[in-house]
């Protein structure tokens, strides 16, 4: 393609379609315009709203300190897009270069960016999930409905699943003075993302703040009253929790179903792409014109053994979108890899929890500074003799320091004495992650690459 002018034609008068009108889609669109794309830009979103920010929905919105329909994302620049909102994409024809929409129309493209993200995993029993008072929390509409029910002063809230979102919801309930029970299948909150050592700290935080935390249990069924509202939940230990609001917080599912049969390498784990955000087709061949960004993408990362990572991280959505947009308009020699270091934050029970790297890859942890008892510490994760991740509770200013250690594959255990010489530090412990073959609701990083040690996958050859 180099030198034949086709890239110049694309910039001047091409058609770029972005499916997914959320954070990644918006930032990609802005980047395309910033880099001089003057052609037709179409933004497709299944929700009727312009791009909005989600993190406040489980934090200030549930606390009643911001309004759910006031989280529209600020624009960095004009994007002059043709908006198709409230219409889901339903199909992709890669040969014809056409996206099919739910209203029966089609949109043709020269370059396509897929940023369809994830949705909340619903309660598996559809009938029980449809009971009044049963919620999930992912979208603006979800947040409006849940906030309204909390404001009405329910007698008890049950949160199913103690990942980050579930913990934030429980925290908001307690701050509003509402009785709340949290049911978690694992032995502690947050174990999928941060392991059992940190999970134990999280469990104490829940209990100190008056959460009725039940671990090692599953909710086996929800019971409604004659009017169709939820009344109680049955737990696997035989106990019954009476609650009039139930929030199902069991993690997310990737929005890839609309790509079934398209020939794109898309499935429940996301859409596989190369480090430059170009999607793979089902044959493992990289496409030239289909790009992926945000929660729905999974791409290999040099710092983490070239495993395919899929990241449900705000910062990843921004960075990957910018890289995808840049690469869509670039010659192959000018393309950039997306090598963002995973980072996320959570705020619960008044404590700021932040992390960099991939803690869930770690096998050991050292409390490098601070103390768990004070809820102010830095935990550093080790994997095969190197630093692979770090987490802070109310100590986030140290994170950039540990991020550089991750980026430079610094040795683990840490070889230097830190400024903080309390006895807790300097001894690596088992980070205590659950068996990865046991499903957990809420890792925000999924290692989804194929490892030869992974015997749970089955190869089914296609017959021609």
């Amino acid at each position, binding site marked *: 393609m180099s030198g034949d002018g086709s890239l110049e034609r694309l910039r001047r008068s091409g058609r770029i379609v972005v499916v997914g009108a959320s954070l990644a889609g918006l930032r990609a669109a802005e980047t395309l315009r910033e880099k001089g794309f003057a052609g037709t830009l179409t*933004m497709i*979103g299944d*929700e*009727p*709203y*312009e791009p909005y*920010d989600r*993190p*406040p929905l489980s*934090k*200030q919105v549930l*606390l009643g*300190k*911001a*309004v759910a329909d*006031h*989280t*529209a*994302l*600020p*624009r*960095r*620049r*004009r*994007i*002059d*897009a043709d*908006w*198709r*909102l*409230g*219409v*889901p994409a339903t199909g992709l024809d890669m040969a014809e270069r056409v996206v099919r*929409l*739910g*209203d029966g129309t089609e949109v043709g493209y020269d370059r396509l960016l897929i940023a369809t993200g994830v949705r909340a995993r619903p309660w598996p029993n559809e009938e029980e999930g449809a009971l009044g008072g049963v919620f999930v929390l992912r979208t603006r509409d979800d947040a409006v409905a849940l906030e309204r029910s909390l404001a009405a002063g329910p007698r008890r809230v049950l949160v199913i699943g103690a990942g980050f979102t579930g913990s934030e919801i429980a925290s908001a309930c307690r701050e509003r003075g509402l009785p709340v029970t949290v049911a978690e299948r694992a032995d502690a909150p947050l174990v999928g993302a941060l392991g059992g050592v940190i999970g134990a700290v999280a469990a104490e935080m829940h209990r100190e703040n008056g959460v009725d935390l039940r671990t090692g249990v599953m909710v086996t069924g929800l019971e409604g009253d004659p009017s169709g509202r939820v009344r109680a939940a049955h737990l696997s230990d035989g106990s019954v929790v009476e609650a009039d609001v139930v929030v199902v917080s069991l993690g997310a599912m990737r929005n890839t179903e609309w790509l079934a049969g398209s020939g794109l390498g898309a499935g429940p784990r996301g859409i596989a792409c190369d480090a430059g955000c170009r999607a793979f087709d089902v044959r493992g061949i990289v496409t030239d014109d289909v790009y992926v960004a945000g929660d729905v993408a999974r791409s290999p990362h040099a710092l983490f053994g070239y495993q395919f990572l899929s990241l449900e991280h*705000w*910062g990843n959505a*921004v960075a990957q979108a910018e890289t995808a947009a840049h690469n869509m308009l670039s010659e192959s020699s000018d393309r950039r890899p997306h090598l963002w270091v995973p*980072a*996320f*934050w959570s*705020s619960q*029970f*008044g*404590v*700021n929890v*932040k992390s960099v790297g991939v803690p869930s890859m770690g096998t050991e942890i050292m409390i490098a500074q601070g103390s768990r008892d004070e809820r*102010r510490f830095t935990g550093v994760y080790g994997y095969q003799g190197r630093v692979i991740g770090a987490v802070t509770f*109310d*100590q*986030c*200013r140290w994170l950039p320091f540990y991020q550089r250690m991750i980026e430079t594959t610094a040795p683990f255990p840490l070889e230097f004495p830190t400024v903080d010489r309390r006895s807790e530090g300097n001894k690596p412990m088992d980070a205590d992650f659950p068996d990865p073959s046991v499903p957990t609701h809420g890792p925000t990083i999924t290692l989804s690459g194929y490892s030869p040690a992974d015997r749970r996958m089955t190869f089914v050859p296609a017959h021609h």
Partner: protein
Amino acid sequence: MRLVVDLNRCQGYAQCAFLAPDVFAMHGDESLLYDPEAAEEHREDVARAVAACPVQAILLQADADEPVPTGGGLR
């Protein structure tokens, strides 16, 4: 006035909460809560907060002139 804070960057310096207390507030020692759609009357305070943030984590709407799209398709 729309704004968003990159909370990966935010390190809890609390300059914003000091300069625009009607829009930004600390929750605990380090966590930041903010109003993502602050009232126009706070624009000057917010602009000062944007400028003062040591890690430049606050993004304020750049161009409010673009027509706001609304969903016209299926619901």
